[in-house]
């Protein structure tokens, strides 16, 4: 039988084509009486004129679309990577079954996206940019993925940003706190849900000054890559400009450091009163545990400007008691936001523990993507990008949010938490107390402040 590609890209018989043509003609005829229907149909008709770009149209021509995740499953960020993966898996499951939570964020989702089931393919990035890019390259050739995600290291996010722009395949960053991700390394094809390090600094800075006062001495611990350097700079800039704080030492360590004794010795001899630890993942766990061994904690007060999922679980709540941190999400926000409640319940039911912000961020990124594709009624990447860039407000687990067109950064609140003492914990996962939910918009610098230039659509 003769098969051909139709504008809908499914191999179909001549008979079906004739039937469809008749239906579309009839529908268009009817549409002339209904402006709404016209609007809904027109993008579909346009789709036929879209030139091939990236994996479009072949990636979305079957009844399944693939999304590729390159998350760290080994190495320093393995714990957080596995957690992200659970967020992605849950989102995919919800998209494919048309779960109520997905429908609240992406109302046009029924079962699947534009009638296609979503399948997640997963690779291990080990938090290394090269490895992440290789994995995605493999997914492109083997699965013709329509969306990429992954990162727990901003170095990976930045690499995948540029890769996405080159390959013309959408990329939604997973965890990435660097100012570069939607700053100097922003791209047209990349989007970020979690906030800038700068935003975190502007949110936690006032809380620090309020709690600790002015003119203090701080020691910084910084992981040696884009995230570490930009977050340390943002936090230090805020504290020095607004509170007269002084950075007495900045201990920069490579990703994957195990023994922090040399760095901690320098800090112990620095005369600092506060320890601002920008380290992340296992680096953060080890540096905090070892700071305790050296007596630096509790002598110095620990601050975590960009929260690390599972920090309290791994170090024990004794070490995080009283610690201030800026985070995307904490599960007790379920008392405040209905969507958070549905998410926490669904996640806990499936995985047996309360989700941390890595999983929430992952879930939201897929949910937002599903929203944008279903609203645009198209998998054609420029259509989806333009849908993001409309900047429409939509609900999230921390209230209403929207994207900034100029840097592809979600405008969302920053949650400030403080570690609970073990005696104050109501259950074994009640590690943090939410102090404030700070609105995001006033915290954010201008979109071009870090030199963002998004680049081309095609």
């Amino acid at each position, binding site marked *: 039988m003769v098969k051909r590609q139709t504008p809908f890209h499914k191999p179909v018989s001549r008979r079906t084509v004739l039937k469809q043509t008749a239906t579309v003609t009839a529908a268009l005829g009817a549409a002339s009486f209904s402006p709404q229907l016209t609007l809904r149909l027109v993008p579909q008709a346009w789709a036929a004129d879209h030139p091939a770009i990236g994996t479009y149209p072949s990636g979305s021509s079957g009844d399944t679309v693939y999304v590729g995740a390159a998350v760290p499953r080994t190495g320093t960020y393995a714990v957080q990577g596995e957690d992200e993966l659970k967020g992605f898996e849950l989102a995919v499951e919800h998209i494919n079954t048309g779960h109520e939570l997905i429908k609240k964020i992406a109302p046009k989702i029924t079962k699947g996206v534009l009638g296609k089931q979503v399948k997640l393919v997963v690779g291990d990035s080990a938090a290394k940019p090269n490895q992440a890019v290789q994995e995605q390259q493999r997914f492109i050739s083997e699965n013709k993925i329509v969306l990429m995600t992954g990162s727990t290291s901003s170095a990976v996010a930045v690499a995948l940003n540029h890769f996405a722009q080159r390959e013309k395949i959408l990329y939604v960053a997973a965890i990435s706190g660097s100012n570069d991700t939607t700053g100097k390394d922003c791209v047209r094809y990349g989007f970020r849900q979690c906030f800038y390090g700068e935003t975190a600094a502007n949110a936690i800075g006032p809380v620090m000054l309020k709690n600790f006062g002015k003119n203090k001495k701080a020691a910084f611990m910084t992981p040696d890559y884009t995230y570490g350097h930009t977050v340390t700079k943002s936090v230090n800039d805020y504290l020095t400009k607004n509170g007269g704080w002084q950075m007495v030492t900045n201990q*920069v360590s490579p990703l*994957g450091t195990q023994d922090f004794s040399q760095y901690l010795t320098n800090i*112990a001899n620095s005369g600092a009163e506060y320890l601002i630890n920008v380290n992340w993942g296992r680096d953060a766990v080890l540096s905090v545990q070892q700071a305790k061994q050296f007596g630096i904690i509790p002598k110095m007060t620990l601050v975590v400007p960009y929260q690390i999922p599972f920090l309290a679980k791994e170090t*024990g709540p004794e070490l995080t008691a009283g610690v201030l941190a800026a985070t995307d999400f904490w599960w007790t926000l379920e008392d405040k936001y209905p969507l958070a409640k549905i998410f926490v319940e669904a996640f806990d039911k499936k995985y047996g523990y309360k989700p941390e912000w890595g999983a929430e961020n992952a879930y939201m990124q897929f949910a937002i993507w599903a929203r944008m594709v279903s609203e645009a009624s198209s998998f054609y990447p420029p259509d989806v990008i333009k849908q993001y860039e409309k900047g429409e407000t939509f609900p999230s687990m921390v209230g209403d949010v929207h994207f900034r067109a100029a840097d592809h950064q979600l405008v969302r609140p920053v949650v400030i938490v403080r570690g609970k003492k073990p005696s104050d914990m109501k259950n074994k996962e009640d590690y943090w107390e939410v102090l404030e939910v700070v609105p995001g918009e006033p915290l954010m610098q201008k979109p071009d402040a870090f030199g963002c230039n998004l680049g081309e659509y095609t």
Partner: protein
Amino acid sequence: MINWPNFLSQLFNGLVLGALLALISSGLTIIYGTLGVLNLAHGAMFMLGGYAGWLAFTYTNSFIVAVIAGSLFVMLVGVVMERLIIRHFYNRPDEDQLLVTFGLGIVFVEAVRFIFGSLSKAVPAPPPLVGITPLGFMLYPTYRLALLGIVLVALIALYLVLYRTRIGMIVRAGIEDSAMVDALGIDVHKVFMLAFGIGAMAAGFAGIVNAPVVSIAPDVGEAILVQTFVVVVIGGVGSFPGAVLGGLIAGEIISITSMFNPGYSYVMLFVAMTLVLVFRPYGLLGTAGRE
């Protein structure tokens, strides 16, 4: 932070780190010296020691039991590994040996990850060793001080086994010339198995005694492996005293450099290794022609 208290502190830090590196490296160097196999699973042995010890600790709550269990388990793993797999690679090209040990390392790490997950596990220091000890120039974690003592005792024990016992003599002879040992009628296969077991045990022991300092995770041995290679190259391949000297030098280089700028500590370590390779290609205490 360039001042005397910090210098003394870092000097001391270097000693602790160096002693640990010396112990792990001597395991690697014994295996390489005797069998001619560069065991890329040595980092995984370090990790396995930590996990076996941690498991024993969760059941018995005894640190001493944990240390014994960790060491013996890894020794057993080493012996079994040598018997079942490594033995078949003695006469195969070096690359095959590297690949098989590298592969085994991955298998061990991922098996542990599969069973215990990626979340790190803490083994607390024994209660009398918890806390901080003032050293005059700085406050130092008591357990790290104890660790220095524990590792020194282990190194001395290893020295006594290698230099004061008949078995040690045979192993050393095997390092010098295994063909000759074989020709003298000694069952060289048994020696190889034993050497592999002892070498692995050194890493396993280090893995569990280091667990209260650096909580364990499946990847804990990865970074250690690279450092121990550097130590072995600096000290001299196959030389036990070389491993000890190399370990101390490496520890001090890392620590003293970090006083100026931690970012350069590993750069300096590799600079030192390069200098050794240029001026003494067989390592500081190595001998030309040894395999």
